[in-house]
């Protein structure tokens, strides 16, 4: 029985290890490629140990950029992506927590209708409503602005639903105790709901930051200036140059750089998850 379990464990770990290898290998290749010069990558026999061009590649990528395709240093693109991702994550948390608070704790006419209208937006991601959204953003003169990048992506229901579900698990007595303790609607929100929502907020932040960071179609449509392009667009442009050789070492370095902020966000936010899980109890 014990033996049996041992073998099953070994088998399970083997399968997992193979899975990890399959996922991790391309990432490793990208990191590897960011340490060679273009010629080594292109000749098709790239060694599996890192080369000596890392310093040169990262310096050029960050501060000069791919000279023929994107014409902007990648640090600029990262800043753009970062502002967009942060804007979406924070904006979404703000809007969601407030709308969920309204839907759960206030009785107003057409409350259910309001909730269902919010709910329905789940079925309308940006890609589906892209034409009207583009039209509105263009008419408002928001093309090539951060506001234009951020605002349309904030409007969707995932966050509202998440907070609504969470608020519904908070016992009514907590609200009633607050009322008796003299806390009005705003104090209850600030002193009780917000602290209890930290974990949910951290989760939503991670999801939305990565969602924003990885946006492709929307930034592609509404940004035309070089200094507004995001890193995802940048990578795409580097790979499809028409009149010149792809600068693979720059593209791969950019790809590696593009992975860094999401990884940091996950690692950093993990602390809040753990803290939140340990501290809150309903």
């Amino acid at each position: 029985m014990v033996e049996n379990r041992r073998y099953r464990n070994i088998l399970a770990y083997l399968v997992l290890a193979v899975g990890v290898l399959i996922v991790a290998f391309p990432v490793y290749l990208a990191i590897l490629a960011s340490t060679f010069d273009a010629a080594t990558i292109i000749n098709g026999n790239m060694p599996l140990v890192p080369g000596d061009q890392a310093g040169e590649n990262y310096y050029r990528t960050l501060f000069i950029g791919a000279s023929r395709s994107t014409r902007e240093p990648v640090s600029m693109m990262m800043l753009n992506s970062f502002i967009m991702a942060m804007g979406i994550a924070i904006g979404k948390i703000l809007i969601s927590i407030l709308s969920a608070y309204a839907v759960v704790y206030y009785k107003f006419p057409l409350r259910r209708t309001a909730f269902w209208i919010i709910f329905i937006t789940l079925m309308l991601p940006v890609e589906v409503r892209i034409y009207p959204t583009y039209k509105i953003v263009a008419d408002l003169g928001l093309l090539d602005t951060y506001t234009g990048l951020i605002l349309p992506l904030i409007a969707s229901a995932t966050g509202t639903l998440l907070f609504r579900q969470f608020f519904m698990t908070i016992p009514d007595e907590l609200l009633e105790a607050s009322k008796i303790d003299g806390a009005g609607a705003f104090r209850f929100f600030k002193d009780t709901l917000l602290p209890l929502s930290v974990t949910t907020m951290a989760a939503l932040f991670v999801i939305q930051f990565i969602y924003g960071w990885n946006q492709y179609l929307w930034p592609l449509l509404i940004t035309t200036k070089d200094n507004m392009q995001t890193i995802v667009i940048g990578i795409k442009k580097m790979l499809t140059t028409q009149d010149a050789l792809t600068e693979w070492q720059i593209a791969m370095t950019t790809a590696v750089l593009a992975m860094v902020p999401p990884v940091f966000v996950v690692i950093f936010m993990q602390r809040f998850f753990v803290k939140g899980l340990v501290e809150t109890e309903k």
Partner: protein
Amino acid sequence: MAGVSLDTVRKIYAGNVEAVKGVSLGIEDGSFCVLVGPSGCGKSTLLRMIAGLETISGGEVKIGDRVVNEIEPADRDIAMVFQNYALYPHMSVYDNMAYGLKNRKTPKDEIEKRVKEAARILAIESFLERKPRALSGGQRQRVAMGRAIVRKPQVFLFDEPLSNLDAKLRVQMRVEIKRLQRALGVTSIYVTHDQVEAMTLSDKLVVMSGGQIEQVGSPSEVYRRPETRFVATFIGSPPMNILPGKVEGNGRVSIGGQSLSVSDMRDGLAVGSDIEVGLRPEDVRAGATGQLSMNVDFVEELGATQLFHGKLGGADFIVQAPTGQIAADAKQLSLSIDPANVHLFDPQTTKRLGKA
């Protein structure tokens, strides 16, 4: 300090559910009033209307001399203890108790003084810095009480505060609540469906059923002279035996042909008419020469006492006796009862048919 008075208070929930049907009640300043009744009888609703957590559909609620119908809960000068404690999970015990005072802009040193004092009274000083999560059920209950005490309110409201505790702790906390209320002298209204809690805690016992008051009185009045069959069977454990009988006249009734004398019997009842006879299991004596005979089906052991279950006059009947007084293998019991302990009820209205 202040008393509480209710004048034909009603609550109609959405969908025309009438949860409280015109309740009038006066609660004297400093007294301990317990609302007791079966699940769904509207006792929580009534309490929550006094607290201001439910709007009042009709009638008037007064705390002291002030009508509070339209006043916010925080301004009614009440404090409430909830069944699930409703402590703020993210705040320390200290902050849980201080929160209400902070919100009403009490000076810091005054807050500290009051919280420390309440903590001392409740013996929770050693975990003021802990979060509620790190406390046992009984300790959380104390913190919830502490949160009520620091406010120095006119009225304490309790909604089944002990039902989440185990049996032993419940008894212990019950005694503490009583002691605390005596010491502080704050008018208290306490909701429970546990009749032992109701009997032991109350100065004034209010038995409710179906959104209405069945009877108000001191616990002993309610026990000795239940006004309705509902109260008779609800208060007392095991519940009062109710047997169908007939009026014989001259202060006598018969049960299955066996005659019984009654001291508290209304005059002028028609001879031969149906009547319900209530006998408490603990009031019945078994002996050699009783008026009633009962067949025993089985015996339940409670330690100090035994319960004899059987049939009398065709109806189920329970006799409670100190262990050893009746032979446990008895098949037939001869029962006698003090005429003062016989309760009569009208089978139609279920009201008591006692002397006017």
